[in-house]
């Protein structure tokens, strides 16, 4: 028993600026959670356990973005204690919705929300984890997909690369046999430039993809932007649709878009 205890790899879950939704995705694995806990030793997961075991950790899942000076130091400590570090979700991989401050005046933001802004410690930017420390793998999404999370942990335990395709939402949409909302109905859709992973949830309900998994590699933003205009979107509307949960991701940021 003691031998098994030593042999199990350790898992740590870390939170930075975020909504908790991506680490909740781990607890949402209702069918797999107890079996997973037999395979890995959950050593640091504050949302789920008051027991904290010391590092180093074999696998660290990092949620959230870096928005304070203290957190920019803490992520370095986390990296130093982690053999494999995987970022989970749009906040950790791209800075999240809170990266909209990067394009505004953070002092004005602070004054708009708090009566005594001097009490509030924050950086002027919200940045991805990879901007601060080396990251071994990224899981995209706002929030991440449960199936991809389980695939990631399974691959880690098996010592192989996770099967997480870097294609567009369109590929998953086609495989589901869904009708293209843009071609058939003229509904603006970010599917052609958005990283796959969700399973084409929005087109399945007749809604255009709104890009919550962020840009795929090699996305052709200028071409899609023309198409969005054809669907009747104004410059402002196009600007807004790319300025959400992955607003600061290279690829969706204004300078990369051809807008």
């Amino acid at each position, binding site marked *: 028993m003691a031998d098994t205890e030593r042999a199990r790899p350790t898992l740590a879950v870390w*939170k*930075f*600026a*975020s*909504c*908790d*939704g*991506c*680490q*909740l*995705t781990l*607890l*949402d694995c*209702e*069918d797999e*959670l*107890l079996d997973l*806990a037999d395979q890995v030793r*959950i050593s640091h*997961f*504050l*949302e*789920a*356990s*008051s*027991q904290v075991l010391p590092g180093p950790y074999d696998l660290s899942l990092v949620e959230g973005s870096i*928005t304070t000076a203290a*957190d920019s130091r803490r992520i370095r400590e986390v990296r130093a204690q982690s053999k494999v570090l995987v970022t989970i979700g749009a906040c950790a991989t791209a800075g999240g*919705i*809170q990266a909209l*401050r990067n394009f*505004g005046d*953070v002092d*004005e*933001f*602070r004054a*708009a*929300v*708090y*009566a*005594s802004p001097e*009490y*509030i410690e*924050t950086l002027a930017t*919200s940045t991805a984890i990879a901007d601060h420390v080396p990251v071994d793998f990224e899981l995209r999404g*706002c*929030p991440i997909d449960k199936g991809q999370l389980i695939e990631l942990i399974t691959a880690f335990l098996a010592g192989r690369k996770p099967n997480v395709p870097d294609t567009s939402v369109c590929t998953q949409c086609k495989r589901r046999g869904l009708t293209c909302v843009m071609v058939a109905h003229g509904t603006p859709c970010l599917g052609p430039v958005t990283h796959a992973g*969700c399973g084409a*949830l*929005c087109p*399945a*309900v*007749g*809604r255009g993809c*709104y890009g*919550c998994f962020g840009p795929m590699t090699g996305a052709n933003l200028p071409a899609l932007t023309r198409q969005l205009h054809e669907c009747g979107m104004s410059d402002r*509307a196009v600007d*807004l649709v790319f300025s*959400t*949960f992955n607003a600061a991701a290279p690829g969706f940021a204004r300078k990369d878009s051809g807008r």
Partner: protein
Amino acid sequence: MTAGSRELRVSALARIEGESALRIVLSDGQVSDVQLRIYEPPRFFEAFLRGRQHTEVSDITSRICGICPVAYQASAWQAIEAVCGAEPTEAITALRRLLYCGEWISSHALHIYLLHAPDFLGYPDVVSMARDHRAIVERGLRLKKTGNAVLEAIGGRAIHPVNTRVGGFYRAPTAAELIPLVEKLREALDDALATTAWVAGFEFPDVELDCDLLAVTRPAAYAIESGTVTSASGLTFPARNFSDHVAEHQVPHSTALHATFDGRLFLTGPLARYTISSALLSPVARQAAQTAGLRDTCRNPYRSIIVRAVETVYAITEALRIIHAYERPDPSFIPVPPAAGVGHGVSEAPRGLLYHRYEIDPAGRIESATIVPPTSQNQAAIEADLRGVAAAGLHLPDAELTAACERTIRNYDPCISCSAHFLKLTVDRR
């Protein structure tokens, strides 16, 4: 430091959603300071919502909280639809209530089994609890999964639903698509009743909160997705008058704002909802409450776990009722053309009252946004409770007193991530 002085600190509280810490200073046999510090970094939602289109708001506000995204969508729809004079059909409203029931079931099961019950049974987490109580933990996970199944069937996704919009839904499910939920919900009803009986057997310290209570109410139903605001002290007012009564002020130790109700300490959440509206629960939920030993009101924060279980029973019976009476909304949404004005929305997130206010220009652009989450309303009451717990536990060694304080905080299911604007335990003994 004098001989009689000490400081207790918990730098990162566990089994709550988000980042907070506790600091308690005990000096010469008295509690001199209690601070529940929310150090969750500020994310400035209210600032960057300005300039956004009224149709985008609910997709953005859902990202405030991964545990209760539907609440953050619902309060936003309500406020924006009020400005634009759009009144969703009964069929749309019923489908929204069904979606919200899914969030109550899922969030309550998470709190009861994964976050709260380990405190009563002496485990650090659900995984170690499962070693001794596997079947019970599996029951809790099954309940949670059914809540998520409702969220997925109606909302398209459990966390940050994609099928929702101002005016209604992108696509309304067919009646046939809801049928698979019925069998799951019937099983969940048995599980929720067993949960209520299980938690009723826990040991509860004898404490009563004497602060005022605030909840959303409706004349003929236990309020979830909308209603008017009612206090235990007997005041009722519409959402638009919320800021006349609930004032937020900033405290140096927290990124959350503290709130008072007409200048007084108050609490929102399950205890408030139950105490104000228990008569409106479904017969099955009322009977479950009675069997579990609850009276018509409940002001014991430890017993909130029973109230959550009863509310889970209620949410399941409501979900079944709505599905049985389901008429597919057609169209699935009503148009919400932009209009200038100010709108207010209130709904009952699983952890308490959530208020939104938006000022919108004639083109539908958001000019200002105010979001008052339940945890910032509850923070002062939680600190007051902690002060009492610390005062009563002065004789305890630091580790025991700290554990008692952490337990106290978890009684309130605080959701720190809801730091739209928003709470660390340290105990100082001086």
